[in-house]
């Protein structure tokens, strides 16, 4: 990124020099270096204080045996890459990684994308009132605080008088215990669909109606219209949406409010795993190491999508 930016700056300067203009021709606002630096300084300080320093601190903790209590809390020792090798050998960690993958695939990439697109596509043609009501309901799921929706879902899925059991007449089924992963996947799909719906609504609004009509006149059915007209137009939006929701879902902590990672680690996604290890188990060093691994995975996902996005353009 930085290298590209540098190149751009350089080529701009060269262009300015060639044109006989001043070397600082990129400074369109005429601020000058000092004032420009002064303007961005507060932001940089904030980024440094709240992002870079804690991140560096996490990296540092990751190579120590720092604990919440005991001798290592007072005198943490440098242990090298021990935490990382321990994590890779830890079956709980690998289980957690697998569950996170399932969670992201099931609730974000499949669940939210498909549900969001289906809603956006259907709502184009329904009466305005229906559209507003549905949109509001879907949005509510998104904007309500996690603690509230978690409580709603615990009540909804409860084995003892839960709404779902009442509807399915399966009284006594403890959904959160018997199907913990399915529960949190459905929960997160429900919770996050609004974003995909909004993004796809906007994207679909930008598909020229005349192109859809041209396809219809050629005899194209709904599937062919989606394939030949709609998808090529919204490909970039699909990628952006997938990137954002997979990162959010990957880092999402709200499943903890439903299952706390249980029963017996059965729904312990990585953020929950870290929380359990670091704050319940007190292994802050180990937790930090895993946080760092998560950060790397985030980066890989992001780079993958950004690359895909560039290629498609």
């Amino acid at each position, binding site marked *: 990124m930085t290298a590209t930016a540098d190149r751009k700056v350089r080529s701009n300067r060269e262009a300015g020099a060639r044109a006989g203009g001043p070397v600082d021709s990129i400074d369109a606002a005429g601020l000058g270096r000092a004032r420009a630096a002064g303007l961005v300084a507060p932001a940089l300080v904030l980024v440094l204080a709240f992002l870079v320093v804690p991140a560096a601190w996490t990296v540092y903790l990751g190579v120590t045996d720092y604990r919440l209590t005991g001798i290592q809390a007072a005198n943490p020792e440098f242990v090298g890459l021990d935490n990382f090798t321990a994590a890779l050998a830890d079956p709980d960690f690998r289980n957690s990684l697998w569950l996170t993958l399932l969670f992201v695939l099931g609730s974000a990439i499949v669940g939210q994308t498909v549900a969001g697109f289906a809603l956006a596509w259907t709502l184009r043609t329904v009466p305005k009132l229906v559209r507003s009501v549905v949109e509001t309901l879907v949005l509510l799921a998104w904007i309500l605080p996690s603690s509230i929706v978690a409580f709603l879902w615990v009540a909804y899925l409860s084995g003892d008088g839960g709404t779902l059991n009442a509807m399915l007449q399966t009284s006594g089924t403890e959904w959160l215990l018997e199907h913990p992963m399915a529960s949190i996947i459905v929960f997160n799909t429900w919770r996050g669909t609004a974003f995909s719906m909004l993004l796809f609504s906007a994207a679909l609004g930008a598909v020229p109606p005349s192109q859809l*009509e041209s396809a219809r006149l*050629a005899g194209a059915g709904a599937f062919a219209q989606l394939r030949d007209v709609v998808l090529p137009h919204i490909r970039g939006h699909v990628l952006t949406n997938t990137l954002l929701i997979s990162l959010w879902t990957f880092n999402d902590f709200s499943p903890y409010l439903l299952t706390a990672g249980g029963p017996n680690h059965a729904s312990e996604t990585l953020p929950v795993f870290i929380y359990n290890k670091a704050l319940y188990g007190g292994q802050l060093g180990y937790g930090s190491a895993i946080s760092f691994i998560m950060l790397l995975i985030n980066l890989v996902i992001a780079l993958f999508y950004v690359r895909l996005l560039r290629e498609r353009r």
Partner: protein
Amino acid sequence: MASIRIDGLTKVYPGDVTAIDGLDVTVEDGSFFALLGPSGCGKTTLLRTIAGLEEASGGSISIGDRDVTRLAPGDRNVAMVFQDYALFPHMTVTDNIAYPLRIKKVGRSERAAKAAETGEGLGLSALMARRPGELSGGQQQRVALARAMACQPDVFLLDEPLSNLDARLRLEARTFLKRLQKDLGVTTVFVTHDQSEALAMADQIAVMEAGRIRQLGTPSEIFRRPANTFVANFIGSTPMNMLPGKLVGGVLQVGALEGVDAVAAGWAGREAPDGEVTVAFRPEYARVDGKGPLVFEGTVETTESLGASVLVTARTDDGQRVQVVVPEGEEPEVGAVVGVAPASGRVLVYDAEGELLSPSSSVP
């Protein structure tokens, strides 16, 4: 190839907005047919209803022998060229042209051959591998036409075919479209709000207002003998002169002029009812030399150059404005008193409802 027959077609949008109001019209096989009217007159809705993009609320549409009123757009065997051409931006010119064939499950090689053949006919051979974004407006239009032609439809529908081209290209495209339509011989309906396009290209023009056809005729009929004051006002590059008058016992009175027997003679035989009328004539069909049965004395207010001719605006003593187009160099001075004289046979008289009174042939 087929004619289009439309019977009692009605299109009502939700909220009781009537876009087409019990319309009957037949488009002859192979003709180039223009739907002309101001915006909101229902011409585009009519075109889209023929295409099947809008569902008819009542009445029927037949193409050839088939009643297509309830058929899906893809089953009507019509092709439409949209105002924005609606080319698929991610497909090459070849793929765009071949798209209808692909939907009809024609094989790849046959599709490519057909696209190449159609493209060649429209001078697109060198552009077949490009994408629409790399083409000029005129080229895009030809690709859209090629796509419409490739599946050999019974009917072509063109929505404002020239409006996205710049002025110079528009004239070229006009000639090109007219020749293409004659070469292909496919029944073609096009929508335009620009009367000069309709007059130049069409074999038949339907002038529409508020969901109805106000006049159907050849360009020269529409231009020379507008059937009502709406069409008279709408057609013509300079506005038609419209003067209030009276018909008393078959004798016409216009303003200060009374008893204009020679002009009125045309209606005497038709027993035109007495009453208020509107006397109309085109500025192109009048002179300023004061010779003729009907002469309006007036003072020249302004003269405007139209290039090869000059538009002279005069005001009569009783305050009526009269305009005349005279050849360049023959215009009177501003302030001069002239006698504006419409050519005999070119004066139109409309009754109080705005309908044409003059019989088409018996005017002297």
